């Protein structure tokens, strides 16, 4: 039994309602996790000595618009000693997408969560410093959302802000 299989069965036993699905695609396993139990799952993954997922590799946000639930967060975690990687997927609704922040478990979640907030408009409950990171602090809208227009856009400066603002389509919220 590989470490990955062990992880999946341990999680399914421990969180029967938290683990919603296990999907394999191109040889990679993705566990769909209920956002309410994400924190507990992550804590368990890190602290259970037999699992030992000590590294958070990345957080990626995907917009599935117009599907609902609209957003997905992908958490890639790694158990370095076992050389195992696991992908967690959390689905979030289109209106007010908020996920719990896992910065308390893996500090490296700090900037990736800020990026998801900045570019996708996903909130993170309990994040210590949730500010925009790549876009300017006074930017409006979230550029990676599918309803955010791409290209052929005038650049906004102070002298033409009002004029452009009036005909600009912003992503909701």
């Amino acid at each position, binding site marked *: 039994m590989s470490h990955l299989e062990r992880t999946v069965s341990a999680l399914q036993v421990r969180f029967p309602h938290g683990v919603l699905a296990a999907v394999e*695609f*191109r040889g990679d396993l993705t566990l769909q996790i209920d956002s309410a139990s994400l924190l507990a799952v992550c804590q368990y993954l890190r602290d259970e000595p037999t699992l030992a997922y000590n590294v958070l590799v990345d957080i990626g946000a*995907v917009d599935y618009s117009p599907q609902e639930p609209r957003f997905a967060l992908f958490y890639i975690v790694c158990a370095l000693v076992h050389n195992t990687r696991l992908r967690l997927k959390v689905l979030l609704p289109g209106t007010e997408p908020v996920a719990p922040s896992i910065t308390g478990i893996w500090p490296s979640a*700090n900037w990736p969560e800020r990026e998801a907030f900045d570019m996708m408009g996903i909130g993170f409950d309990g994040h210590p410093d949730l500010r925009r990171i790549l876009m*300017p602090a006074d930017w409006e809208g979230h550029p990676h959302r599918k309803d955010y227009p791409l290209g052929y856009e005038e650049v906004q400066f102070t002298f033409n802000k009002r004029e452009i603002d009036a005909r600009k389509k912003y992503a909701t919220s």
Partner: protein
Amino acid sequence: MSQVRELETTVEELKHLFSPRAATGETMLLNLGPQHPSTHGVLRLLLELDGEEVVSCIPDVGFLHTGIEKNMEAKTFLKALVMTDRMDYLNNMGNNLTYCLAIEKLCAIEVPERAQVLRVICAELQRIASHLVWLGTSAIDLNASSILIYCFRDRERIMDLFELIGGQRMMTSYIRPGGVWRDVPAEFPEAVESFLDYLPKKLDDYERLLDKNPIYLARTIDIGIVDGDEALAWGMTGPALRGSGVNFDVRRAMPYSGYENFEFDVPLETGCDVYARYRVRMREFRESIKIIRQGLRLLKPGPFITSDRKFAPPPRAELGRSMEAVIHHFKYWTDGFPAPDGEVYVATESPRGELGCLLAGDGGPNPRRVHFRTPSFNTLQVLSWLGKGYLVADLVAIIGSIDIVLGDVDR
């Protein structure tokens, strides 16, 4: 008027990140960057200083944000490839490779043997070029100024090699989904070999320049200490992590492009300081040379791109003879190819650490989402606490040692 108000609120928003002493004026707030040569690009650091000692440091990134990930969604998989060159501008081949590996995994494309070996050779040449730039710039940050010119002179030879195979020095887009753009010219192996014969002696010289320089040693040893657990918790990868004694290299842990067929060591240092990170990279030069030499031996004649006409264009000669080839050619360059609805993640070892690509297809010819897990972005987080207690001059040494590329951070 309104802009002044906005700026005020920004400082107000950041208040919780400074010590209370900043409000009373006991400590000084100072901007380091974004336009400062020792920040290796456009990185802004908001420093709170007590004399010359750093009390707190807030990295501010995004000055080089170009919306590459968003732009890629509007292009077909192939057309989006040219944007990856422009992300981490010292690892162009590696970016191409990561993105192509993601496409190949998503669409289940087989890559011929020769293309895989060529990819490894290119990626390792790129690693040497990137480390040369790092060596020169991080040394000049500490006032060892002559070494910069030497490093750029040697890097130029690698740029010439890339020009030979891709027609371009930096933005080659040479690695394509399914293989490489075209086969290397006949003189390529010889040109690489002569460069590999030339480099080791030069590296010894550079090493002597720095290792026997008491000022360089005093400014790097015991500066910027990150222990292994901290480094892992804060998302460090690559040479910076291996300088803290953690044995993790994507080429070893999850071999791609046939790295499992190559013999090489993963250099580890246990100093955890700026000097240890320097040692790791100096040893990685030699490992890369070893890998390229093996690659040249493994380079056997054969196809350089997949023969699946859905994912690679037909050879020019076929266009005059075969109707199917014309159709494939036309469909490939206009519509592109569709990818299944699903998500894949692949990672490669860039010169700075784990470069990952989360690629989501939607069944059509455009990606639904391309997200890059860039090593510089994740590694830079440590600067929010690593600089504390050191002098401003040491902070410059630390920035140089974690080897960030702002194009990689901001994308």
